[in-house]
């Protein structure tokens, strides 16, 4: 059992990180902390994808050599490029999410002067009356 865990230790770590992220999003009432939780969650998934493509002893997929004299690419020596490429997109997406959420948070802070969810709800319901 222990061997099983250790042999895939990277995946187990991602699970732990994802759970930390979920905890942050669900349990914290501070909106900024929620956002941080969300970031952790997203990054865990990105790590996970990178692991899929990784190989022991392999390198990143940059073809070496000079003009006109390329060496043949040997698959064993480079990591699987597709996950990395996909994750480039996912990183962009993540950054964009963070950006949007931060701007929303700034607006919230300007309007309500706090990040605490329960206080904001209280303010909103008072206004409703």
């Amino acid at each position, binding site marked *: 059992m222990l061997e099983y865990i250790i042999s895939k230790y990277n995946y187990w770590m991602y699970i732990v990180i994802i759970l930390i992220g979920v905890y942050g999003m669900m349990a914290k009432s501070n909106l900024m902390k929620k956002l941080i939780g969300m970031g952790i969650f997203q990054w865990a998934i990105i790590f*996970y*994808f990178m692991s899929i493509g990784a190989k022991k002893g392999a390198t990143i997929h940059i073809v070496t050599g000079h003009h006109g004299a390329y060496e043949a690419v040997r698959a064993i020596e480079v990591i699987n490029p597709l*996950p990395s490429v996909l994750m480039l997109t996912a990183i962009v*997406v993540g950054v964009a999410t963070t950006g949007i*959420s931060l701007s929303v*948070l700034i607006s919230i802070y300007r*309007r309500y002067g706090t990040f605490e969810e329960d206080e904001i709800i209280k303010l909103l319901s008072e206004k409703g009356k």
Partner: protein
Amino acid sequence: MISEQFPALIVVTPLILSFFIPILGWWRRSLCLPIVLIALSVCTVFAIGLLQTVMTQGKIHYWLGKWQPPWGIEYVVDHLNALVLFFVSFISLMIAIYSKKSIEQELPEHKIPQFYTLFLLNITGLLGITVTGDAFNLYVLVEIASFTAYGLVAIGEDGAFVASFRYIVMGTIGACFYLLGVGHLYIVTGSLNMADLSNILPNLYHSKVIIVAFAFLIIGIALKMALFPLHAWLPDAYTYAPSTVSAFMGPLMTKVGAYVLIRIMFTVFKPEFSIGMLQVTDIMVWLGVAAMLFGGIMALSQTDFKRMLCYIIVAEMGFIVGGIGIANATAIKGAIFHILSDAFMMACLFLVAGTIMYKTKGHSISDFKGIFRKMPFTAIIFTVGALAIIGVPPTCGFFSKWYLLLGGIEAKHWGFVIALLLCTLINVALFFRVIDKGLYLHVHALEHASEPAGHHPEPHYDEAPLSMLIPGFIIAIAIFLIGIFNQAIFKNIIEFAIPLRL
């Protein structure tokens, strides 16, 4: 031939034009709306062209940049998504026409270009989700649609920021779950192309990874389409959003989510897997039942019209998911037809909500007081939408319910049948409450019951502008036409859209 490029153009046209909006809008604000209108009418023409091609020649495969799948991104148009493309572009065109007055009133002037940019980008995302045949490309486009949606919600009235933030958190979780699911599939198959996946996967159906991937995908989509019990973000977000925004997101976003669900369950995975092996459909029926009843009851307890509509969306998603879960040909036909008809019905009702908002500056049910006298045309549009949701023939709502019920009885799933009938009754109560408000002006309190009626000041005629009424009328007429010509739609499109080997 340009018609061969339609699958790409339908996404690229609004994408490119959306970049011109802030530039030209900065120079002259009145130019924003025409650009949107041009983009969306072109999209509608493309969508009609695609629908025609699909109906005559069958499936269309389009390789972006001539890269062969499974390496390149492939766009596939078949009967199912041609239909979705059509209603997405058509309804968004209607909403764009409608948006002019409503946006001018609700948003400060400097935000108008930003609004239209996001609006067009959102539609780009929705069209892209529909047309793509690549699982990862779908993720990117889902995110485009979601980001713009977050932004659009946030420009709404007070409370919209918090609603938008909640939507961001929930939406991101959904997207990440979907991404995780795609990742799992990629580990075991090494492919992201949907058609390719569905060829490779049958040999791996017993692998645990596949089952986990399937679960992640379904949960991710369920979050995006606000399936009960993952609907919590929806009522707040759509209630506080500007009325134009809820008018196109309410009908379209969740419906496109439902389309993705069908795509994943029956195209990427085969029915043998999702129905036969996992039997996830049983759970889905009961989730659908719970969604219908919960949505209905919550809608009953609302005093705000838009929020009531939001809970009706939750209930309507229950219809669709329940229909998919019944998993016989009749019910799935019903579910697909309900995707189409519900998009039109919800568009109709949200348009009315926006029109009322335009005139009375509020969207609670009490703002409907006397609309049958004050705004008779809006009231007619509203009545058509309400009757369609209730499912009165010959509106389209009746026929989707007919197929869903028929499928439920065929499968002897009495829980679903009874819940659907109950939900219909709840809808009756919901809408006649509003109609009462609009219709009866002379309601006396009990103590004045002896006074003769008819001597009260009549509310004066105060109708909304034509640019808001015409889209509403077109959609209301469409509701009838879809109902009356439902057999044409079933025979030519939906028959081919249901998965084989059911």
